[in-house]
């Protein structure tokens, strides 16, 4: 109850003798008494427990030393690598080609593939070259590769030199595939969209296209513009580790950094060659009709609001633009094909809208026929604008001219690059340093500093003054740099300005730091958020126009009256559209499927249904997006045949009332997969969640479980290693809390109930369970349950871990370097906290060592499901749908499409085991997830689950707020639960 006092107590305990300790405690009891008069929760009980914790802190000093022996090896950053190799020259000669014949690969030697000699590297395979006699230098790696049409959206490629990892970015490079609309390629420039029953254009499904591609290995985060350099010398072994999908590689070249001439020089060249300035008609290509894209998610998008968008129709939704937030990650490329009527000089106009990043520009590289025409197009910036803009490529003085020849097909491509890579990189490293500084201070003053105490930070932290001045200077340099690159004072950049001011005032008055620490932390996380924003580069474009050099761009026709008339038409049309039904078929046999999920998910499912279910089996399906009212609808007979995404609580309530089909009935069904086959696709315990009275009434489609997240940098700093058991966790907590850092166990699940997953985890590891004898009574009177409950609550009473906290911001700032959470939290961190990339790890949860010396790391899982209703007319069709939907193939397609729409932040947590490998997890992460998943168990859902969860919440809160005895409290609530179970069973006629 009084963290600060307990901190003082700890200090005192460590530094004073026993006598003064007793005095101090008696004083604190007095203080406590005073507090109780103000705050009713404060009770005398915790004082005794704090005495205990003093003892335990002293006790585990020795065990900590033991732990300190192991520490982390963090791969260096590319920046560090470059600094280390600053003396090595950057290669500046002709490309050195290493061909397939000289490659050694476990999957066989070079053979002929698509007209070239190539090695085919299988999924997760390696290919190695021995570097011939070359000068010792830093080289770019350029790879000529072709797709083998294997699954996966891109190749992730890791570079090993002499079988060692080089730096972090080298392990995460990506080779892109080519994606195109299969109907489009031969039809360009015709519109090739399919239409729904209302005449709206549908988003196409892109397919992979074969063909040779050449690409340099680059930083997939876009922080470094010129590609990744590797130090190579004669005799080095260079290995590429290709993950996720098989690839054909014909050659690897060691190349020099490509240099373009500036436009001024190019202009002189045009003049020297006497290229003609032309007049005449402009050539327009619609952006939504690309030749191919680098990503299956770069789909056409729709702008229904601007009348000037081409083409536009008030009554129907047209796919008339491309990009938006699907086109914001580094290296995403769109390529268009075009031809011009006359040979000569052209200007390029692009109609674009960038209304995502206020006050910030986004960057694109332009390539014409595969090459960057001149230096200015290496990072061409599009400014923020609320409305559509017509951008003529050019500099402040003049539009750029491009020499294009008539009579042949040209390509133009735009690739995402970060508009301010250097600034972002510097800001990220400054932020990381400031976070470390914050943590240093936090470790001394704690989360609740005493405003009247002088913590003497300047004498405790070495080089305190110098460091602060350094930060101040760094930030000032950065700010000036940012002003120069076009950021306006007081605009979005204000987060950096504020931070600079704050640091300045810190170095003036160090005594004020403790009081302003939480504001400082807020500013740091604001900067972190801004950086995450800044690294995204969304842009929407409508068309590209090739304008003969003498012509002026036509004025956009957006007269007020015309826009108004158009808006009114759109308004009228909105009365006709049907937005809830996603696909409807009029057929007796049709299955009615409800999706309880987001609109994007429903669209994807619908697309999958029409392309690979109805198409394949000929069973018509009606899909609708319904979020609420499943049970009332079932009651009135208007319910669906199949529900996708039903939560386990609703599912068991339906099952207990005989509304769902027992899926074991499909054991001997004359179909591709019987129930047992389908069952084997899941983790063995998955189906327990959906088992009621021995009936299995649903199949899981999504599954999450807890994993442990640790900040490796902080652990390294404190000499800690990741805890593997709960005892080790206890020690870790002690060390961390001595440094005023927290550990986060998931507790809060909104106001309603406490997150029970840690209790369940402990219960599994102690060999207990929620129910005994089916579900006729609870298992909470068992010793295992009491141990688990006591241990769980002790974390909050004795170790005083916080119960309410914002995990994301605390983990990111380092205030909470260890946390247990659902593994989907990985995605949040990955996308939302770029500044700590590579500084954290996801590991299995702590375990318990069993009698046979094995480590039990069981964890509790939960999820959502798909279920089939009894009222379904044709149950075999229903089962066919279910087994099609949960199959590896469908789920993998679903996961990939969802990820391509929502980005890596929306990565699925599938229940079908095989799918995990098909989606974009890095290999090591996937291994950790599988490791944990194999040890997942679940608590079966029953019609009284609601009562167990509320009783456990109440018991937990009783113990943690009022410090009651855990055993007695659990017993008391257990009696109530058993009473409710008996009542409910009687009610259900069991």
């Amino acid at each position, binding site marked *: 109850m009084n963290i600060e006092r307990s901190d003082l107590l700890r200090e005192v305990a460590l530094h004073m003798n026993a006598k003064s300790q007793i005095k101090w405690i008696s004083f604190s009891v007095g203080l406590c008494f005073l507090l109780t008069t103000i705050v009713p929760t404060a009770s005398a009980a915790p004082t005794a427990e704090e005495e205990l914790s003093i003892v335990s802190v002293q006790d585990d000093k020795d065990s900590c030393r033991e732990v300190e022996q192991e520490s982390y090896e963090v791969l260096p950053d590319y920046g560090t690598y470059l600094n280390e190799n600053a003396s090595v020259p950057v290669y500046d000669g002709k490309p050195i080609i290493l061909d397939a014949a000289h490659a050694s690969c476990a999957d066989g030697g070079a053979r002929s593939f698509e007209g070239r000699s190539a090695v085919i590297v299988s999924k997760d395979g390696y290919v190695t070259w021995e570097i011939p006699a070359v000068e010792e230098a830093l080289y770019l790696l350029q790879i000529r590769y072709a797709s083998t049409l294997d699954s996966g959206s891109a190749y992730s490629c890791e570079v090993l030199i002499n079988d060692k990892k080089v730096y972090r970015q080298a392990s995460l490079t990506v080779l892109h595939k080519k994606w195109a609309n299969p109907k489009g390629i031969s039809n360009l420039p015709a519109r090739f969209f399919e239409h729904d029953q209302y005449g709206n254009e549908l988003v196409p499904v892109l397919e992979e296209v074969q063909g040779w591609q050449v690409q340099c290995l680059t930083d997939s985060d876009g922080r470094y513009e010129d590609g990744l350099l590797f130090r190579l010398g004669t005799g080095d072994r260079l290995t590429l580790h290709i993950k996720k999908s098989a690839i054909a590689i014909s050659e690897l070249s060691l190349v020099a950094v490509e240099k373009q001439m500036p436009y001024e020089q190019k202009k002189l060249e045009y003049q020297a060659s006497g290229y003609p300035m032309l007049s005449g008609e402009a050539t327009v290509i619609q952006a939504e009709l690309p030749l191919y894209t680098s990503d299956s998610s770069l789909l056409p998008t729709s702008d229904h609001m601007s009348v000037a968008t081409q083409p536009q129709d008030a009554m129907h939704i047209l796919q008339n633009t491309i990009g938006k937030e699907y086109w914001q990650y580094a290296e995403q490329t769109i390529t268009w094909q075009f031809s011009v009527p006359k040979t000569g000089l052209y200007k390029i106009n692009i109609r674009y809208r960038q209304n995502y990043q206020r006050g910030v520009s986004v960057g694109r590289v332009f390539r014409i026929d595969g090459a960057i025409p001149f230096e200015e197009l290496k990072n061409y910036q599009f400014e923020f604008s609320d409305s559509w803009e017509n951008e003529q490529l050019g500099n402040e003085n003049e539009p750029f001219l491009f020499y294009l020849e008539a009579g042949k097909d040209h390509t133009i491509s735009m690739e995402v690059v970060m508009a301010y890579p250097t600034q972002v990189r510097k800001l990220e490293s400054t932020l990381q340093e400031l976070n470390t500084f914050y943590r240093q201070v936090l470790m001394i003053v704690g989360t609740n500093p005493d405003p009247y105490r002088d913590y003497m930070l300047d004498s405790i932290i070495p080089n305190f003054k110098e460091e602060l001045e350094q930060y101040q200077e760094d930030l000032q340099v950065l700010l000036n740099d940012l002003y120069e690159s076009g950021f306006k004072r007081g605009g979005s950049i204000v987060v950096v300005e504020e931070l600079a001011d704050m640091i300045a005032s810190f170095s003036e008055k160090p005594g004020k730091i403790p009081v302003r620490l939480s504001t400082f932390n807020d500013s740091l996380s604001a900067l972190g958020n801004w950086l995450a924003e800044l690294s995204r580069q969304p842009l929407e474009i409508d068309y590209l126009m090739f304008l003969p050099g003498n012509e002026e761009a036509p004025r956009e026709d957006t007269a007020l009256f015309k826009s108004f008339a158009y808006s009114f038409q759109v308004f009228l049309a909105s009365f006709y559209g049907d937005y809830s039904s996603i696909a409807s078929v009029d057929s007796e046999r049709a299955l009615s499927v409800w999706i309880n999920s987001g609109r994007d998910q429903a669209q994807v499912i619908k697309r999958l249904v029409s392309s690979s279910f109805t198409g394949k089996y000929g069973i018509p399906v009606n899909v609708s997006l319904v979020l609420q009212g499943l049970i009332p609808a079932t*009651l009135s007979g208007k319910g669906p045949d199949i529900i996708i995404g039903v939560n386990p609580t609703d599912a068991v309530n339906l099952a207990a009332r005989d509304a769902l089909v027992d899926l074991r009935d499909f054991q001997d069904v004359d179909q591709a997969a019987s129930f047992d086959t389908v069952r084997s696709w899941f983790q063995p315990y998955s189906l327990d969640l959906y088992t009621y009275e021995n009936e299995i009434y649903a199949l899981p489609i999504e599954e999450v479980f807890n994993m442990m997240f640790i900040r490796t940098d902080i652990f390294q700093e404190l000499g800690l290693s990741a805890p593997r058991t709960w005892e080790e966790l206890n020690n870790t907590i002690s060390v961390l809390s001595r440094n005023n850092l927290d550990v986060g166990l998931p507790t809060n699940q909104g106001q309603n109930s406490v997150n029970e997953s840690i209790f369940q985890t402990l219960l599994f590891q102690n060999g207990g369970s929620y129910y005994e004898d089916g579900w006729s009574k609870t298992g909470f009177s068992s010793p295992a349950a009491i141990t688990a409950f006591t241990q769980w609550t002790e974390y909050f009473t004795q170790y005083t871990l916080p*119960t309410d906290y914002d995990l994301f911001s605390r983990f990111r700032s380092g205030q909470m370097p260890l946390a247990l959470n659902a593994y989907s939290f990985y995605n949040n961190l990955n996308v939302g906290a770029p500044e700590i990339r590579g500084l954290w790890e996801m590991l299995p949860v702590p375990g318990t060592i069993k009698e046979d010396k094995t480590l039990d790391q069981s964890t509790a899982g939960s999820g959502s499901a798909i279920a089939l209703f009894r009222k379904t007319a044709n149950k075999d069709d229903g089962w066919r749908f279910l087994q099609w939907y949960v199959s590896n193939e469908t789920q993998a397609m679903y996961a990939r499409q969802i990820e391509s729409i929502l980005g890596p932040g929306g990565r699925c947590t599938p229940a079908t085991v095989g799918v995990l490998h098909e989606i974009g997890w890095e290999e090591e992460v996937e291994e950790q997830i599988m490791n944990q998943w194999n040890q997942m168990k679940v608590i079966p859902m029953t019609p009284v689950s609601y009562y167990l969860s509320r009783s456990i919440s109440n018991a937990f809160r009783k113990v943690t707020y009022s410090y009651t005895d855990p055993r007695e409290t659990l017993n008391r609530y257990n009696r109530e639960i058993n009473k409710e179970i008996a009542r409910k069973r009687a009610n259900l006629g069991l």
Partner: protein
Amino acid sequence: MKARPGYRCASVSSVNRRGMKRYQWQEYIMLLPFFCFFALFIILPIFASIALSFTDFNMLQFPKFVFLDNYSSLFLDDDVFLISVKNTLVFAFLTGPLSYFLCLLFAWLINEMSKPLRMLFTLIFYAPSIAGNIFVVWTAILSGDRYGLLNSLLIQTGFISDPIKWLTNPAYTLGSVIVVQLWLSLGISFLSFIAGFQGIDRSMYEAGAVDGIRNRFQELIYLTLPSMAPMLLFSAVMQITASFGVGAVSSALVGNPSTDYSAHTVVLHMQDYGMIRYELGYASAISVVLFLAMILTNTLIKKILSKYN
């Protein structure tokens, strides 16, 4: 009513009598659309829930007739029901009257202000109730985190050193909900009071001054309040009836059920059985009891207040 001489009473009454007959069915026809909806959405559900309260109904299977079982377990077995009744009474007789008097007080104070100020304050006080579910902002204010608005304020000022779980600790939940409920309930009655104050004839105050009213308080007690009796009655009925229906705020802030049912009300108890446990028969029984209690209190209040009418 006696007809006054000078009016054409005889003919009026005869036309009326005939007219009554003629008008009667026309009036009913005009009433019909409203009555249909009223019957369909109010009367029918009331009867349906009375009927269902004698059954065991799980929403999917056909209801089983159990006669008074639901009522007997409600009154004899259900501890939580008693808690919820207690809390509902706290809301009805603490929050209801308290907010009633606060409304009156604020309305009176604001009424004394100049017009622009009055407009401003009316908006400020009325805003919470027109803004719908705006009370969820209180989850940020009362967050149990160290960085929750109220907690961080109290910690900074040194009143507490550890965050208080305003929304999950049973010692605080009911208090938190009451505060939010008060804040929220100022709206409608407040507006009707202001309207009432505006509607009072100014000349009455002048006459009062002549008759020896000495200060504003006397003015309030002898003139203002008696002239506002209908408004007062309306607000009192509204406030107390509304207090019986309290639940939405509680379930949004502290959850349904709240920790140890500390802020559980009868409506929430009904929702618990109806929407979480799917025992509609039992939930109906609760709703019938609540319905009867509401009618009873309404009549009582009307009786009490009619004395002043």
